[in-house]
């Protein structure tokens, strides 16, 4: 088990181990020395999930999930549908009880605390605004239920409507507001009573792309402004990278990796994470050579140089392994000239060229690699020669950019 900067997880990826201590905000949790009891980390964390499992019938929705989230941080739980991310969030909110394990909020176990007694604000996937109330009544509802002084409620409501840039919209009924405005009301309602923790259950999933990206930045801004500890659930990898301080990647009910976005992207813990985030090519073959620095795979008879991926165990010689290679790490040129410094150079033929505006995506068939088709981004189309289907091209990439994971 690795413990570092308040983040301790069982299935730790290489990324988390590389978290720079100075980037962790807040209290005295910098680089806890090895051997510090688990309890202390849990007490300091705003949210602490300890070996939590949830079983529905014979389905293991969440399996032994553990993480600690320091106060004031923005965590995103990222995963495909059915990965258990929403179940985990519902357990934190108190809507479902864990089958096993414990959840601590502000250092206190919450097993026996019903949802209405937890100081948690939540924005629901379908917003769940109260349709028979105005925007202001929706925002005032948590204050009334939590028995805030009635004289201060209108001011607080107005202040939070202004925070989400809906000043003056209080008297509107919910169905008189646009999708984005309803979103903002839901955020104001979740935050108005100054909760210890904010939960976001894919509230942006239903929005169109432009509005979604605007709201992602809005979440980021509000979270920074208030400093509220936030857990966001999404299947949108871009959103996770944009908004989060930390990303937990989940699949099949298990946590695959917890790390800062840049580490999740650059040093994925395993093949699943590498595949789920970014556009990734996989080259499979047996390991033919391993050393401290490099692992060599045989792909379609060709030697391919890579580096050990995030898994704890480096695949040994003779074992079947997969090399993960991001589309943007591959260079493309008419000939191999100029590729001399690269660890891997192959020749291929362009199958398809897809113009996406800011970049061109090439699909290149490589006979040397057993006919594998690699996806390659060319971001700077201007200065490069453009290729069309049938053109012969050379591809090259650094050995350190290709992570080898055991199959």
């Amino acid at each position, binding site marked *: 088990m690795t413990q570092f900067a308040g983040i301790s997880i069982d299935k730790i990826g290489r990324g988390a181990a590389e978290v720079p201590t100075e980037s962790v905000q807040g209290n005295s949790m910098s680089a806890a020395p090895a051997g510090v009891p688990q309890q202390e980390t849990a007490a300091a964390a705003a949210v602490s999930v300890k070996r939590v499992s949830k079983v529905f019938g014979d389905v293991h929705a969440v399996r032994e999930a553990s993480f600690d989230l320091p106060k004031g941080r923005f965590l995103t739980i990222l995963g495909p549908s059915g990965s258990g991310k929403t179940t985990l969030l519902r357990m934190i909110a108190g809507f479902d009880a864990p089958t096993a394990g414990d959840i601590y909020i502000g250092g206190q176990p919450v097993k026996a605390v019903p*949802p209405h007694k937890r100081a948690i604000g939540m924005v*629901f996937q379908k917003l769940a605004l109260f349709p*028979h109330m105005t925007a202001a009544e929706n925002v005032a*509802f948590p204050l009334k*239920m*939590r028995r805030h002084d009635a004289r201060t409620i209108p001011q607080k409501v107005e202040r939070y409507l202004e925070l989400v840039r809906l000043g003056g919209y209080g008297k509107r009924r919910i169905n008189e507001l646009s999708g984005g405005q309803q979103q903002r009301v839901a955020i104001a*309602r979740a935050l108005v009573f100054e909760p210890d923790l904010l939960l976001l259950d894919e509230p942006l999933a239903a929005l169109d792309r432009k509005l979604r990206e605007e709201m992602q930045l809005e979440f980021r801004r509000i979270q920074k402004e208030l400093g509220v500890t936030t857990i966001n659930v999404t299947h949108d990898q871009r959103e996770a990278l944009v908004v989060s301080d930390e990303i937990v990647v989940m699949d099949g009910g298990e946590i695959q990796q917890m790390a800062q976005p840049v580490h999740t992207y650059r040093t994925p813990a395993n093949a699943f994470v590498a595949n789920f985030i970014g556009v990734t090519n996989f080259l499979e073959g047996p390991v033919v050579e391993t050393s401290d620095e490099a692992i060599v795979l045989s792909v379609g008879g060709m030697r391919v140089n890579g580096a050990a991926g995030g898994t704890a165990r480096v695949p040994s010689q003779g074992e079947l392994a997969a090399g993960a290679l991001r589309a943007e790490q591959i260079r493309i040129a008419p000939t191999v000239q100029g590729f001399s410094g690269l660890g891997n150079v192959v020749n291929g033929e362009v199958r398809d060229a897809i113009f996406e505006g800011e970049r061109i995506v090439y699909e290149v068939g490589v006979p040397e690699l057993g006919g594998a088709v690699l996806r390659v981004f060319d971001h700077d189309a201007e200065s490069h020669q453009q290729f069309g289907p049938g053109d012969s091209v050379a591809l090259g990439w650094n050995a350190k950019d290709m992570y080898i994971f055991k199959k």
Partner: protein
Amino acid sequence: MTGSLSKSIVIWTFVAASLVMLSAPTIVVLGASFTAGNMITFPPEGLSLKWYAAISQASGLRQAFFRSLYVATICTLIAIPVGTLAGIALAKYRVRFGRTIQVYLLLPFTIPLIGSGIGMMLAFGNAGLAGQLWPLGVACAVINLPFMIWAVTASASNLSPDLELAAANCGAPPLQRFLYITLPAVMPGVITGSLLMFILALNEFLVSLLLVDARNVTLPVQIYNSIRSIITPDLAAISVVFIACAAIAIAVLDRLVGLDVFLKSK
């Protein structure tokens, strides 16, 4: 072109015929009530409001009308809590024997009214309640309860389960969640259902006839009794008042929640 023309002729003929058949009784009664003569006739002989003046003097009819209002009020007061809670439960929770309960609720429709009426007459008679007015309200509530439940269920099944979770997340304990969130959300159904219950109980004839004794009759029974002796235009006038009450209730309903809520219910 000719195809669509002949199609529209057929459709419009149908619509016109339906409208005439549906509204004819009302129009006949309405016309007859304004007659200046002493017999119920249609078209009326001259125009006059004298039969309306007559019914305002006729204490028998007036008292029967108030008895009907009383029965309808009791019926509605019983149906609102029972029907609302049952409707929400059937729509939102997986109630044990939920299907069976729903089929059971259809029974009052499938059993002829005369059958259930006689059953109730015996039951109330054994309990020593025969001839009183309030048991009739209870009986109407029992017989017509499916309307109330259906109206509430239609509203409640549109209700997102997230709403109650959101209310819990806002700090509302279970009772507050019900009062502030669930109940207002199903209110259109409750209003629709209770107005329907009111109208149905106001109009109830057969069960009234069986349960109530001759000195204590409701308006429909009173009118029926009068027809058996001499048919005078004051009966048409009181019928119009009766129809007007129902029409006002429907108008109120449409104004408050919109008729589509009920039309959409199963």
